[in-house]
C-alpha cells in the first residue's frame, strides 16, 4: 500500500486525486510514537525527493518531512535552499525539524544563496529563534540590499534575546539608509521579550524609542509598549 502510494507520488500533480496518497498520510500519523515507521517513511520521502517530482508532489513530500524529518533529512533539504522552485518548502520543513543541524544548514546557506531565497533563509532563522544566527544576521543589517537588511532586522527581533536586541541597538546609529528597518526590528524584539516576561529588557528598548527625536508612529508604538510593560 505504502509502496503504491510512493509510486503514485512520482506522477502526482495539481488536480490529482489526493486519496492516492492517503497511505502516506496514515503512515505519518502512525509514525507518531513508532520510530520504525517514522524512519521508514523518512527514508522513502528522501528517496522520492531524489526523483524528478512535480512541484505539488515536492510540496507534499516536504510537508511530511516536516513531521517525520530528522537530522538525516537536513542535507537533502539544505541542498534545495538555493532552488527557486523548491526553497520555500525545504525551509518549511527545516524550520520545524528540531535538530541543531537544521539551524547550521540555514546559517551556512546565508553565504551561498541570494535574492528572495536569501530573504527566506533569514526569515527561517528568525522563526527558529536561532540564537547562533544573531552574529551573521547582525552583519546583514549593514548590507546595501534594503530587503535583506529588513529581513535580518525582523529575524533578529523575532529571535528576541538580549543579544539580538544589543545587535539591533548597536546597528541603529550606523544603519545604511533607512533606520526604520532597524527600528521595526527593535519593536518586534521588544514584543518578543515582553511575551517572554522579560519586562526589563523590553522596557529598555521601548524607552530608547520613546524620545522626541523619534518619528511620531515610533513614539506611539514605544509608548504603548511602555504601558504594556508597566501593566504586566
Amino acid at each position, binding site marked *: 500500500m505504502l509502496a503504491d502510494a510512493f509510486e503514485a507520488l512520482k506522477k502526482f500533480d495539481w488536480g490529482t486525486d489526493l486519496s492516492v496518497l492517503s497511505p502516506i498520510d496514515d503512515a505519518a500519523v502512525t509514525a507518531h510514537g513508532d520510530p520504525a515507521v517514522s524512519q521508514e517513511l523518512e527514508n522513502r520521502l528522501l528517496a522520492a525527493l531524489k526523483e524528478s517530482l512535480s512541484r505539488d508532489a515536492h510540496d507534499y513530500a516536504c510537508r511530511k518531512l516536516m513531521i517525520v524529518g530528522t537530522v538525516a533529512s537536513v542535507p537533502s533539504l539544505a541542498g534545495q535552499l538555493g532552488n527557486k522552485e523548491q526553497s520555500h518548502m525545504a525551509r518549511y520543513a527545516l524550520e520545524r525539524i528540531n535538530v541543531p543541524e537544521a539551524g547550521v544548514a540555514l546559517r551556512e546557506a546565508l553565504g551561498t544563496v541570494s535574492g528572495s531565497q536569501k530573504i527566506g533563509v533569514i526569515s527561517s532563522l528568525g522563526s527558529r529563534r536561532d540564537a547562533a544566527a544573531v552574529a551573521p544576521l547582525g552583519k546583514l543589517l549593514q548590507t546595501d540590499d534594503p530587503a535583506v537588511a529588513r529581513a535580518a532586522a525582523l529575524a533578529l527581533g523575532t529571535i528576541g534575546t538580549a543579544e539580538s536586541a544589543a545587535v539591533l541597538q548597536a546597528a541603529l546609529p550606523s544603519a545604511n539608509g533607512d533606520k526604520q528597518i532597524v527600528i521595526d526590528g527593535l519593536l518586534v524584539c521588544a514584543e518578543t521579550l515582553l511575551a517572554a516576561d522579560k519586562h526589563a529588557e523590553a522596557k529598555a528598548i521601548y524607552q530608547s524609542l520613546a524620545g522626541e527625536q523619534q518619528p*511620531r508612529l515610533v*513614539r*506611539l508604538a514605544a*509608548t*504603548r509598549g*511602555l*504601558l504594556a510593560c*508597566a*501593566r504586566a
Partner: protein
Amino acid sequence: MALRFWRGGLVLGLAFVFATAVASAADTQTDEFVQTIVKLIGEHDKEFRAAGLEQVRTAARGPAVTELFVAQLPKLDAGGQIALLDALADRGDRAARTGVLNLIGASPDENVRAAAILSLGKLGTPEDVPLLVKSLAAPTKAEQAAARRSLIEMPGESINQTVAADLLSASPDVHGALIEVLATRRASDQVPALLGATLDDNVRVRRAAMAALGQLGHPDQIAKMLPGVLKARKGYERDAAEKDVAQVCERIENPDQRGAALIEALSTVDAGQRDQLLSLLGRVGGKKLIEFVAAIATGDDAGRRQLGIDALSKWPDASVADTLSTIATKAGDPAERAQAFRGFVKVAAARDNRSDKERLERLKQAMKIAKTPEEVSLVINRVRTAYDVDSVRFVLPYVDQPEFAQLACETIVEIAHHREVRDPNKAEVDKALDKVIATSKDPVVVERANRYKRGETWQRPGRVSR
C-alpha cells in the same frame, strides 16, 4: 529558648523590611504608570491620548486613581473632556461621579454636558434620576438623547419606580420620553402607570403609553388597554393603538383563545363603544371571531355592516376571503360591494402561510367577480404577491389591453424580480419580459425587464444593500 525567639524575631523583621521594600517599589512603579497615563490623557495627539484612555478604561484600578483621572477633566479641551468622560464611564468606578456632576453644572459646551450626562448611565446612582429627568427637557437634542440613554442604562431595581413617579409631574414631551424609557427598560412592574397614561390628553403621551403596553402588556391587561384605543384619534393613532392591543393578543399562544380573550375584554366596554372596536377584532383575527364579525357585516344595520366589512378587511390572513367574496357578490349597495371587494382582494393577496398558487387562485376568483376597470386594476396589481410563473401567465394577456397594459407590465417585472420564479422558467419569462420591454412606457420597468433577462438583480431605490 531566648536565642530561638531572638532569631525568629530577626527573620520576621527582615521579612517585613523586604516586603515593605517590594511594596514600595511596586508603588513607585504604579505611580509612574499612573503619571504616564495622566500625561497621555493631556496629549493633543488623539492617538497618544487614546493610548492613555485605553488604560483609564482597564488598568490602575482604585478610587484614588479614578479621582486623579477625574481631576484632569478641567485641564482638558472639550474634545479631551468628552473622550475622558467616555473612558471613565467604561471604567465604571463611581468615584468619578462627583466630578462628572460638577462638569454637567459647569461646562459651557453642550457636547461636554451631553457626554457627562451619558456617563451617568454607568457612574450615576438613583439620586441622579431627577437630574436626568430634568435633562430630558434640556435645550439641546444631544443632552436630551444622552439623558434618555442614561436613564435606560442606569442599573438598579429602584430606577423604574423613580422614573414612573416622575411621570405625572412631567411636561408632555418629557412624559412621553419617560414612558419610552420605561418600555426600553422592560419595566413590566410599572404597567399600571402606563395604563393611566393611555388616557392622557396629550397625543404623544398616549401613543408612547400604548406602544409601551404593546411591548410589555400581558393578555390579562387587554381589557384595560381598550379605553386607550377608544381615546386614540381615528386614523394613524387609532390604527397604531389597535396594533398594540393585537400585539398583546399574540402573546396568547392558541390563536382560538385570542379571539375569546378579546371578546371577553369587549364585554367590559359600553355596548355603544363596542362597534368602534370591531376593526380591532379584525386585526387579531382567528376562526372564532369570523362568525361574530361576519354576522355584523351582513346584519340589518348599514352602519354596523360597514364597520364589520372594515374589520374583515383587516384580517391578518385569508380565512375571511369567502365571507368577503360572498358579501361582494350579494351586496345591494354599490359602496358596500366596493368596500367588500377591496377587502377581498386585500386578504386574498395577504402573504400568509398559503402557497403562491393558492394566493393566485384567490386572486383569479376576485378577477371573475370584478366589475369595473378599477377593480380589474386592483387585482392585476395584487397578483404580484403570488410569486409563481402562473401569475405571469395570468397577467400577460392584460399587457395587450391598453387600459391595463402599464400596470400589467409592472406586475410582471415585480414577479420576475424573484429569481426562483424566473430562473426555472427562463424562456417563458424572457418572452413575457420582451413583451414588457416592447409595451411599457416606464423606463424603470423597461430597465428592470432587461436586467432580469440578463440574469441581473435590481435594487429598489432608497434601499441600502447589506
